[in-house]
């Protein structure tokens, strides 16, 4: 426990760098201790979440009602968590718990009691965050081993020195032991998987998978299974495996990349100057993909035209927003299902699932899936799997189509309406609302509030290269709202006059991290520093049980050319032919992770909740995604 304390050492004054926060509540700040040796290992791209003060921690433990004893938690905290080191907080930690979050915590603690009861009945073996933290930590440590080997070593050393009472020795094993254990687990898992998904390696350091591996539990307990516990009896192992989204491929693994390439429909030339830190993500030459895919239009026989069209649109960047991408994909699948007919001697459930899989892999080649799309695919596959074998083909197809319609309607359209209704209550006359980028929900909220006659002003913050905020601005101005438009460079100048920040999200992860358009974290942090409440508007179908601590291990890279050029300025051509220069690498990250501490509230279709309650929603309603 105290390892963490000792290593949180940033002088509070250091946190004022960049902008001055008028009145930081000094009481909740922990005492600065010393300078961490690992401070330098921080990557500039990563926004590490500040550590919680102990009161926050306990409240979090309530929000995440896992039968996690503080003891266990503290032991996990002792572990070297690689680059995610406690000492790295940039901004003030002062976790000002908003009254609302406290309140909701109260609600949920009740809930957690229920949960514990249920878990006592023995239905659940694994759960998420704390169960497998040791593993997460271990793999994390391995991943960033090059960077933090020394640091990790010292930290472990310190941890070993600490008299940590009744803790089993599990976590104290040496690094070599842990690695050996991990290797063996991986081998066992690969064996268990059989040939099902040989091309995919387990994402190291991704907590979803890791968390599902309890050391003493069965090896292939998926987190989906955890969320399915409500359904009573567990589906057989195979079904569950199907439900699990395949772990992302690690693109620095040459063999697998080669294999995937051979199967690929879209021509994927690897970018020459790949960013070293992001080698595990796909980095392709963007220029050649679209024309190449276009020429293959008629050669892709098994691909349904609707799916193909959506893929083209992803690749060309015609559809950007995550809701829209999800809807477009689902509608394409709907078309494909309508035109589907089961080949002789095959069953619909199996053959259609295989078809959908091939569509999905095509879409992934066009652009990596968003988390929301992953959830939607999971939903669709679960439905296909659950179709009774006796059902006639036409009925099965009709039922799937109506299921898709219902998903779109309930999880996106109606959810948006509910979110709008909730969010509007947070807008008062005289407010100055700030939003970043363009989120369809936020747009609806603002327009609805305007229709209600509320008197407020909007600040649209935008950033290159997509400048999607301009579309939002156009629609807002068209409707007569008074707006201010600025770029993200000026966010700290505009922030003092802002009273609320509304942000959209691509996903909310179960540790409360908001995964969203790159720049969101920056806006949220600045808002937090100025004590402006940050409200995230996100439909619950985008929630994911994954835990992500940084924006490196899972992210998406955009076209580097997009940031090397300035639209409308032909004279700025310094970066022309940049790809030929070996010592230049352009990084166009698309997403970032905002730690939950900067978020005051998440507005979702289940109400307004603090970020700590996200896992509850994932747990309580996650299975419902699959069952509606």
């Amino acid at each position, binding site marked *: 426990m105290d390892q963490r304390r000792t290593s949180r050492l940033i002088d509070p004054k250091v946190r004022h760098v960049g902008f001055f926060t008028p009145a930081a509540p000094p009481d909740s700040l922990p005492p600065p201790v010393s300078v961490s040796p690992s401070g330098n290992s921080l990557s500039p791209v990563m926004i590490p979440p500040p550590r919680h003060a102990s009161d926050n921690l306990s409240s979090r433990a309530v929000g995440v009602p896992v039968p996690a004893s503080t003891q266990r938690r503290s032991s996990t905290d002792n572990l070297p968590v690689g680059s995610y080191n406690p000492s790295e907080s940039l901004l003030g930690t002062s976790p000002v718990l908003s009254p609302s979050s406290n309140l909701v915590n109260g609600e949920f603690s009740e809930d957690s009691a229920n949960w514990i009861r249920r878990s006592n009945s023995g239905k659940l073996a694994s759960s998420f965050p704390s169960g497998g933290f040791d593993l997460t930590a271990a793999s994390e440590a391995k991943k960033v081993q090059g960077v933090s080997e020394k640091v990790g070593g010292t930290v472990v050393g310190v941890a070993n020195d600490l008299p940590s009472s009744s803790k089993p020795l599990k976590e104290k094993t040496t690094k070599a032991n842990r690695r050996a254990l991990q290797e063996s687990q991986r081998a066992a898992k690969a064996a268990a998987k059989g040939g099902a998904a040989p091309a995919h390696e387990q994402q190291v350091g991704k907590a979803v998978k890791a968390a599902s591996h309890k050391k003493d539990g069965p090896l292939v307990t998926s987190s989906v299974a955890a969320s399915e516990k409500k359904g009573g009896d567990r589906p057989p192992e195979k079904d569950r495996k199907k439900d699990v989204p395949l772990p992302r491929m690690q693109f620095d693994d040459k063999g697998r990349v080669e294999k995937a390439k051979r199967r690929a429909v879209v021509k994927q030339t690897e970018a020459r100057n790949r960013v070293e830190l992001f080698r595990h993500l796909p980095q392709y030459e963007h220029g050649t993909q679209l024309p190449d895919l276009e020429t293959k239009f008629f050669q*892709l026989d098994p691909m349904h035209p609707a799916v193909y069209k959506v893929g083209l649109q992803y690749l060309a960047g*015609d559809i950007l927003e995550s809701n829209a991408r999800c*809807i477009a994909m689902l509608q394409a699948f709907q078309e494909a299902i309508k035109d589907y007919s089961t080949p002789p001697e095959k069953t619909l459930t199996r053959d259609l699932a295989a078809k959908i899989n091939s569509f999905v892999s095509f879409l992934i080649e066009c652009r990596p899936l968003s988390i929301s799309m992953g959830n939607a695919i999971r939903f669709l596959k679960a439905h296909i799997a659950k179709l009774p074998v006796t059902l006639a083909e036409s009925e099965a197809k009709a039922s799937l189509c109506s299921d898709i319609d219902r998903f779109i309607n309930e999880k996106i359209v109606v959810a948006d309406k509910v979110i709008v209704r909730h969010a509007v209550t947070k807008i008062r006359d005289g407010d100055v609302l700030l939003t970043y980028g363009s989120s369809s929900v936020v747009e609806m909220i603002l327009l609805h509030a305007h229709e209600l006659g509320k008197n407020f002003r909007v600040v649209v913050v935008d950033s290159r290269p997509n400048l999607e905020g301009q579309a939002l601005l156009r629609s807002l101005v068209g409707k007569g709202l008074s707006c201010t438009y600025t770029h993200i460079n000026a966010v700290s100048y505009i922030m003092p006059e802002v009273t609320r920040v509304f942000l959209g999200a691509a996903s909310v992860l179960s540790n409360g991290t908001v995964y969203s358009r790159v720049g969101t974290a920056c806006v949220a942090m600045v808002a937090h520093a100025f004590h402006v409440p940050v409200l995230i508007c996100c439909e619950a179908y985008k929630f994911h049980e994954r835990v992500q601590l940084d924006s490196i291990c899972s992210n998406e890279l955009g076209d580097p050319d997009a940031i090397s050029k300035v639209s409308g300025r032909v004279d700025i051509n310094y970066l022309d032919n940049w790809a030929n220069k070996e010592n230049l690498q352009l990084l166009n990250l698309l997403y970032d992770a905002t730690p939950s501490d900067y978020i005051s509230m998440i507005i979702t279709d289940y109400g307004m909740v603090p970020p700590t309650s996200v896992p509850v929603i994932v747990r309580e309603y996650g299975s419902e995604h699959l069952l509606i």
Partner: protein
Amino acid sequence: MDFQVVVLAGGTSKKLVPLVSKEVPKALLPVANRPVLSYVLELLEQSNLKDLIVVVEGEDAALRVGGWISGAYVDRLHVEVAAVPEGVGTADALRAIARHLTANDILVVSGDLVCDVPPGAVAAAHRRHDAVVTSMLCSTPVSGSSDSGSSGGKDKAKKSGRCNIIGLDPTKQFLLHIATAAEVEKDIRLQKSILRAVGQMEIRADLMDAHLYAFNRSALQAVLDQKETFQSLKQDVLPYLVRSQLRSELLLNGAQAEENGNEKVASQNNKVMPSQLLANASTPSFHELYALGADGSAPVPRKTHKCCAYIASKSKYCARLNSIQAFNDINRDVTGEASHLSGYSFSAQNNIIHPSAVLGSKTTVGPQCMLGEGSQMGDKCSVKRSVIGRHCRIGSNVKVVNSVVMNHVTIGDGCSIQGSVICSNVQLQERVVLKDCQVGAGYVVTACSECRGESLARKEKIQSQ
């Protein structure tokens, strides 16, 4: 992929007299000793498009084309040959086969196209934008080589016949204006409304309409039904669609209209939302912006449709055989710079001499030449950049430069042929000198005659046409 392909093979084009005749319709004109239609069919076959409708003008021509296709492409392609009366325009041809068209989108290809641009690219661009029409544009080929020596005035006339004035939006994806050759002579009239909606238009004259279109079937049929006077796709239908793109009179995409109807019946305005969400999120083209009105709040969205353009990259070869000049050029290119199209493998000397061809002593066949099966050449001949067909008998001391000699041609001793086209079964007697001439099929050129820029054909042939 829900595409149907219509190949408009034409009939006996008047522009190509005397090369074409009753026996040899335009589609069967040899390009590097292969009918020009085979280039299109093979291009389509490469793209896995094997169900084709070939429309031919005239019953006789249809029979010939059909016979050739069934001979050459039996069990490779599934081709339906439809005959339409002679002299009808391309739009009429499509009207005639309208009932065969069932797919969502239709790819209309001209039978005289020689190119290596994959039609899939056009189709993909079409689908991506949900366009009503997508037209393939390619850069205008350099017409006539310097040593073909055709007169300046003629050349110019041909050039203006080929080039179009084409207006594109800044992203080069949408067609904003298209004017064919005839209109170019006058002032260019642009529509203010389109210009206002787009903000910026790029006008180019270096692009050629390759006559490869993807049409939305319902839209195309609506236009064909409504506008009965429309004769030609290129001159009437396409400009009309481009002109009316911001005030569409089409009941666009029957399917979409149906959808809207259904939604209203279901009285769920919820269902409209996903499409709205989609529309909001996708980067709007000017069409959508215009449809919503300037302030984004037009009471009723204006009806628009999209006309797209696919611009083939400069590295691709693309030409249409629609004039005698083009015939010469294409023959030269297919054996020369675009040799990958010909499907033959070239020898080390960069020419193709059929093994059964017989060459006399001191006869040279230069690079970029082709000598067909069973042809015989006497002594001291020289062939440069020319295509010679099958079973020709060429005497001694003959010079053939930049010319096309079709099958079964007899050339006497001492002839000199330059920049000419000599059709099948022609007989050239001794010491004939031809420069930039076209000799119709079966013609006999008497000895020692000297022609320059003439078109020689049998009288009755011309009258019969």
